[in-house]
């Protein structure tokens, strides 16, 4: 029996749902002023990273959008191959305060973090969890993409590749590949001058 590629085991499903839950929960809190405990650190970091282009409330709003998007993708197990990049960017951002605002994240750098610093350091667990959930999806996506590219290179653009034997079977095809119907020859361009002469229109 063929294993599903995105969530091969029950534990991985639980991990995906847990990460999604936390992302969506903490992200949604950011839409409400004063409700998220990470508000100060997150907004100040983004304001500084954007060189002041974003003000604190706008920064927080966008961060909320980003986290909710990642959370929903995890929860519904969709678009994970694309969310992977958003996840990487977000994770890099969460570690940024350690370098941008060390005064707030360390009592004494680098081994005595504050509560906020500890909050950031524990994100390594998220990185690992996200990696575990996302990597199979991303790997499968890139594998399929590379296979398609390789197939096209080998067989030319007029060949269709089915994603899987089951997809081919569903469409009533016998194999994983089939030649496209040949392109229809171009219609001849009518000779308007000859047509005009033959019908006597040219005399007018």
């Amino acid at each position: 029996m063929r294993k599903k590629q995105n969530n091969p085991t029950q534990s991985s499903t639980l991990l995906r749902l847990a990460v999604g839950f936390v992302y969506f929960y903490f992200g949604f809190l950011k839409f409400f002023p004063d409700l998220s405990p990470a508000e100060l650190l997150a907004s100040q970091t983004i304001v500084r990273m954007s060189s002041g282009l974003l003000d604190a409330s706008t920064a927080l709003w966008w961060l909320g959008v980003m986290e909710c998007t990642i959370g929903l993708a995890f929860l519904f197990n969709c678009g994970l191959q694309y969310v992977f990049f958003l996840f990487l960017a977000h994770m890099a951002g969460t570690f940024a305060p350690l370098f941008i605002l060390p005064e707030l994240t360390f009592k004494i750098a680098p081994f005595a973090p504050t509560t906020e610093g500890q909050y950031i350091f524990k994100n390594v667990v998220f990185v690992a969890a996200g990696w575990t959930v996302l990597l199979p999806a991303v790997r499968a996506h890139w594998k399929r993409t590379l296979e398609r590219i390789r197939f096209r290179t080998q067989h030319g653009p007029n060949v269709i590749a089915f994603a899987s034997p089951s997809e081919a079977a569903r469409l009533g095809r016998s194999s994983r590949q089939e030649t496209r119907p040949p392109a229809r020859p171009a219609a001849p361009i009518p000779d308007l001058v000859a047509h005009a002469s033959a019908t006597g229109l040219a005399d007018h």
Partner: protein
Amino acid sequence: MSKYWNHACVTIGVVGMVIGISATYEKYRGTDLSRVPQFDRRSTARGVAAVDDAHRVAGSHTYDDDLLALNVGERTTDSAAVEPRIDGLRIYPTIEKGMRTPFDLWRYYGRGVTSFGTPVLPMRFDQWRSFHRKQKPDLMRDVREYMNRRYDFGEKSVAGHFMSGGKPIMRGPVARLPSEVDSFAELAGLAPAEIKRRDLFPYKPLAHPLQSTAHMVFPPEWIKVHPDHARIDVDMDFPTAYLPEFPPPLFLTTHKELGDVSGGVEITLDNYYEIFDGLLSPEQMEGLKELLRPSPTTWFNQTDHRVTERPSRGVACFDCHVNGHTNGAFELGPDSRPNMARLRVDTPTMRGNFNLMQLSSKRSIRSMDHFSEVEEYFDGDPGMQQAIGPRAVKREVTNRMGDFNSIIDYPPAPKLTPMMRLDPALASEQELRGEELFHGRAKCAVCHYGPAFTDDYMHDLQVERFYVGRPEGPIKTFALRGIKDSPPYLHDGRCPTLHDTVEFFNIVLELDLTDAEKADLVAFLLCL
């Protein structure tokens, strides 16, 4: 099928979470912890309706009606007048001490988590210092960019006119107009709502460049002489040319014959005795000494809760009110919370305080004693005063500070008669035309009259009619005697020159003055 079932479960969970968090937030807003004020619109509307009903009944006006009217703010049939005016405003960002705040703080509103401060920094002092070493260069670069976007500080002076000590007076208007309008005349021709809608108003409030710590910011000329007041976090945002002269002359009502008694030097604890011995009464002398004696403040003190490299002795009254005048230092009015709601206030001059019934610019301070007791040393927080350095000045001492305060005179105005009108023999045609406008079409004298050119009232100019912003409330009518010596103008210095001030009032009071009339008015103001 199971996939759809799973998705349905997750969807229910997500929707439940959204509803739960939203409901929790509504609950949270009703608590003391929330920085988002909650308005009970129904109760205000009910209140207004009740007052209206009460007044419809002829002859039924009672004391209870008055109380009811007071409770709803004002007696009006227009319920919009008592409803919150927060359209377009944002909630203050979450900020820790020392962190940058938006320059357009007038666009924000909200309540603080608490009214009370703490003498504890959010980090160790050496971290605090390195934090500001990193932040200050960027902050000051942005402050300069911001100020240059708002003003064209070309440093062009008014020919032939000087402050009382000889410093050139700057010419204006220097406020930059938005690109959509070509001239101040065109702008003044637009309706307030139109200016607001198109965001054209050039005289929006000025915030403290670092409102999270705020406190006193001294000008460079002062810092040069008193490097102990150099801040690690922020510097003055106005160019020196647009600030009062340093040190300014000091005139005494009791010794007009002596002119400037300071002799052109800054009066300090070291030299006050030799300058004033034999001129002041012992009470005045003690008062002056107290005005010169530094004492700890919220951010200038010997503790780690400070904005100076080294521990500071503190600040004296005459450190901002140099020689009884002002050096242009600014800070925040201490009368509101959260800190971000406090309005920036320039140091008002102490000249002519003997003639004023209301002191300071934003608060209604009613006596010299009160003035001496409540100044901004601890930002209106007795808890901080207790923690950082006691400054409980006894009543007899503040009385004596008031004794000296009440003999600081205005600078001479040779063209003014005892009735505070221009002497036609000394004044120019333009100055006389300006005086006529001042008392007539320009409506200045409606509030600025009497020996100090002030009515001693506080007025709400409702400047928020011209921009999306939090209403600033009533502000004291500034005395115009000697006004040429005290730039920048308005309580927060948003009008760097007298020309800007005239443009400001031309727009705000919808006076429709011509350019020639505005020039005449400035000429008259330079005589006062």
